[in-house]
């Protein structure tokens, strides 16, 4: 797969600024972890694109917020309100009434970041950050830490761990192991699903684009558009369901 238009310039700039990365000093494991792209590369494509998207969102949304009016909303305000209200209503539906406002900040941030980074695949000079397993692993870890923290905050440490025990006491050791494994598997499933879908779509579109650059990749790109929206929805709703499971009170 080809790289984005910032990959070469950013790395050349970083090398002229800081010199080559200290690859030789590191052990092979750290080298493969920190600099998998070789000796001349400081940052990988997904990191650069994620920073680009972060900068874009951090500049655009606060500036656009100044133009928002309660009486006469413009199209951009309408679009943003649609997204934010949809996420809030989703959380209200799943977690419980009134929870939407509490969990909106993180899940709304997920929505914006994943949606826009999925859509970055449609520009030939950009690479979607979510097509890389590392970015989605970071997102999934954030979600994982967040829902566990919310569960601990709601029930306390002991009460939250009691969730994993199951209803019967003598089965508790077995249930605990199974529950912990199934919760840890959520990280893998969240991150692999997003990265595999977006990356696979990107690669498939690239193959079609290589065959005939016009008309043939368009159906694939339409599927990619549906997939981009759908995967955003799936990531957000699964995070919401996990939060709902963590903060739920057991009814007797």
């Amino acid at each position: 797969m080809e790289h984005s238009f910032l990959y070469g310039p950013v790395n050349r700039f970083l090398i002229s600024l800081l010199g080559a990365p200290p690859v030789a000093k590191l052990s092979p494991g750290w080298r493969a972890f920190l600099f998998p792209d070789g000796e001349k590369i400081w940052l990988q494509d997904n990191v650069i694109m994620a920073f680009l998207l972060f900068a874009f969102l951090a500049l655009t949304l606060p500036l656009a917020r100044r133009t928002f009016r309660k009486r006469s909303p413009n199209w951009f305000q309408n679009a943003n309100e649609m997204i934010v209200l949809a996420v809030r209503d989703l959380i209200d539906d799943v977690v419980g009434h009134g929870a939407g406002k509490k969990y909106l900040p993180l899940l709304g941030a997920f929505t914006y970041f994943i949606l826009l980074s999925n859509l970055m695949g449609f520009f030939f000079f950009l690479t979607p950050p979510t097509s890389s397993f590392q970015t989605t692993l970071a997102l999934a870890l954030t979600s994982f830490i967040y829902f566990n923290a919310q569960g601990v905050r709601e029930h306390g440490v002991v009460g939250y761990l009691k969730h994993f025990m199951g209803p019967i006491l003598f089965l508790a050791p077995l249930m605990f192991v199974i529950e912990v494994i199934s919760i840890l598997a959520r990280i893998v499933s969240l991150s692999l699903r997003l990265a595999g879908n977006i990356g696979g779509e990107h690669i498939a579109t690239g193959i079609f684009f290589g065959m005939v650059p016009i008309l043939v990749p368009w159906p694939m790109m339409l599927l990619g558009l549906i997939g981009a929206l759908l995967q955003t929805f799936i990531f957000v709703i699964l995070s919401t369901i996990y939060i709902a499971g963590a903060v739920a009170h057991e009814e007797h």
Partner: protein
Amino acid sequence: MSKKGFYGVLTMLALTAAPAFAQGTAPGTGGVKWGVVGAAFAIAVAAAAGAFAQGKATAAACEGMARNPGAAGAIRTMAILGLALIESLVIYALVIAFSVQGK
């Protein structure tokens, strides 16, 4: 799966395996690239089973929506969620296919 279908799949497997073995004995090719064979087989089986499951899920969801249009919203959400969960297993196969492809 019906008996007929089972034998059909067996026949197809035999037919696809024959060229692969033939390729392996050809001189100068350096053997079969089993990674490619495994990757193609993995994604083919996963796609077939996933498509079957998604078809069943979609059919059930459509039927539910047609019988009770009032519940269409809830059914749609659950259907999309279920389809994505089914599809994620296919995606695991895709990821594995990519990772074994070069071996």
